[in-house]
């Protein structure tokens, strides 16, 4: 991935309100191609809302989202996908009656590839992610961990500049998590894109992310390398509550 084509995704002073609840309250975030940015925080901190804003499913008001310096805040989810923002979903949301291969062909068609190009790209990604089973199998009969991997593959099939992964490791055991971590670490080199990773599994977050952004109650609490964030008392308190704010406690 040539160094010169560094792309930049920024969220500037993003606010989102649902009825009385302030889901996001002035959050600033930015990453470049090749970065893996972890996005963590207790439940209801605004993580998924942030991904929805970055992927065009939720309009920030006020606040702007910039892709390579260009304001894309009011682009629709479809236009954001074609502009290079691929995402997966917390509940996978694969196309159940379509086959595994077809699920990966759809994003290819979405960005305008021909049927043949989209299919060959889909097969490459299946190999890359280590999926050896029958590609013509319908997704509603996939085992759970395969379903999670294919939902990541589908985001990558969009040839995104930035891949937003929403809790890919949820419900996975330790062994599956390790395999997932290998996949995620290799995404930037293989696809030349940046990754935003929402995850509750600290093991995965600590093992994969270059930087981590911590949200709580819709506000940015801290941002830094995994080691810095691990030691930051504010983060511990938000995560583990009062008694955990003693210095030697470590997550």
């Amino acid at each position, binding site marked *: 991935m040539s160094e010169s084509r560094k792309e930049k995704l920024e969220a500037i002073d993003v606010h989102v309100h*649902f009825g009385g609840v302030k889901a996001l309250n002035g959050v600033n975030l930015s990453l470049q191609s090749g970065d893996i940015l972890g996005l963590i925080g207790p439940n209801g901190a605004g993580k*998924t809302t942030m991904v929805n804003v970055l992927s065009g*499913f939720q309009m920030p008001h006020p606040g702007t989202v910039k892709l390579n310096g260009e304001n894309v805040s009011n682009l629709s989810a479809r236009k954001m996908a074609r502009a290079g923002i691929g995402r997966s979903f917390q509940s996978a949301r694969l196309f159940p009656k379509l086959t595994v291969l077809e699920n990966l062909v759809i994003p290819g068609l979405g960005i305008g590839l021909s049927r043949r190009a989209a299919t060959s790209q889909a097969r490459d990604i299946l190999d890359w992610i280590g999926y050896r089973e029958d590609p013509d199998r319908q997704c509603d009969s996939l085992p759970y961990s395969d379903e999670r991997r294919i939902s990541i593959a589908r985001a990558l099939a969009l040839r995104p500049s930035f891949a937003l992964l929403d809790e890919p490791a949820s419900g996975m055991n330790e062994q599956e998590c390790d395999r997932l971590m290998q996949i995620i670490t290799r995404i930037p080199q293989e696809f030349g894109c940046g990754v935003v990773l929402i995850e509750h599994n600290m093991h995965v977050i600590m093992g994969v992310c270059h930087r981590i952004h911590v949200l709580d109650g819709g506000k940015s609490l801290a941002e830094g390398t995994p080691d810095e964030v691990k030691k930051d008392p504010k983060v511990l308190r938000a995560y583990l509550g009062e008694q955990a704010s003693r210095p030697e406690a470590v997550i």
Partner: protein
Amino acid sequence: MTHFIQVLIDAVAIGSLYALVALAIGLVFGVMRLINFAQGDYITIGAYSLVVPSAAATPALMFGALPWPAMILCVILTVVVLALVTERLAFRPLRNSDLTSLLISSFAVSYFLQSLILMVHGGRPKTVSIGDALSRAVEIFGVRLPGVQLLTMVVALTLLIVLVLFLKKTPIGIQLRAAAEDFQMARLLGVPANRVIAIAFAISGILGGTISLLVIIQTGTLDIRMGLMPTIFAFFATVIGGMGSLPGAVVGGYIMGILSVLLQAYLPAELRPFRDAGVFSIVILILLVRPQGIFAKTAKERV
């Protein structure tokens, strides 16, 4: 001036009629996510219960021969029983299937009921006359108004008010509204699912039976598909008003009623027969501007 009052009375009468059907459909949709095509056939069967089943064009009266109060009671009872039976047999097994299957199932039930009427009463339209005393015109503020219009307006309005009071004030009414808004939570608080759905269908039966009578008094003709148009109008009333919102259904009903009356009154003579086409074209334009309806209750699906 009298023309304007006439249009006004018509608008309120037809508006209330559509509002009643829209409420019946909105209630059933609220508790079960089902758009009930069969509501039209409840109205048709209520009307046909006035006559003795036969192939004759002017059949002998059955319930129609009874004194007023008994006739009204029998017709409404027939339709309520019919609504409860269709819920129990056809819709209960489909309770948590998806929107499209529910829509298709109500389409199938409607077709089943129509074929039943075809079998019992034959296909040809029939005439029946009840309450001809009402067809005399009535003099108000120097304006001659057909008695039937006044009756429709009065009955429809009172029934609407009674129903709103029932929903607002009585415990069962409150439970029904709670279930219509959040069915799972209502059950967690002890509201029994089967009873609430049955009540919603029973109310749609009462409304259906009343409308059968009002339509028959106005038109005097029995036709297999007489319930269809008011029901389609009511579908769009609920969609414009905002799916699942009961006040929305009532407002939607009046919008449809006023639209059709205005077009009827003010369209040039040769375009007047195309009134319904005009109403539905306007409705589609409204949906384009505001797809989720006026009282949109459910927020956009959060990802």
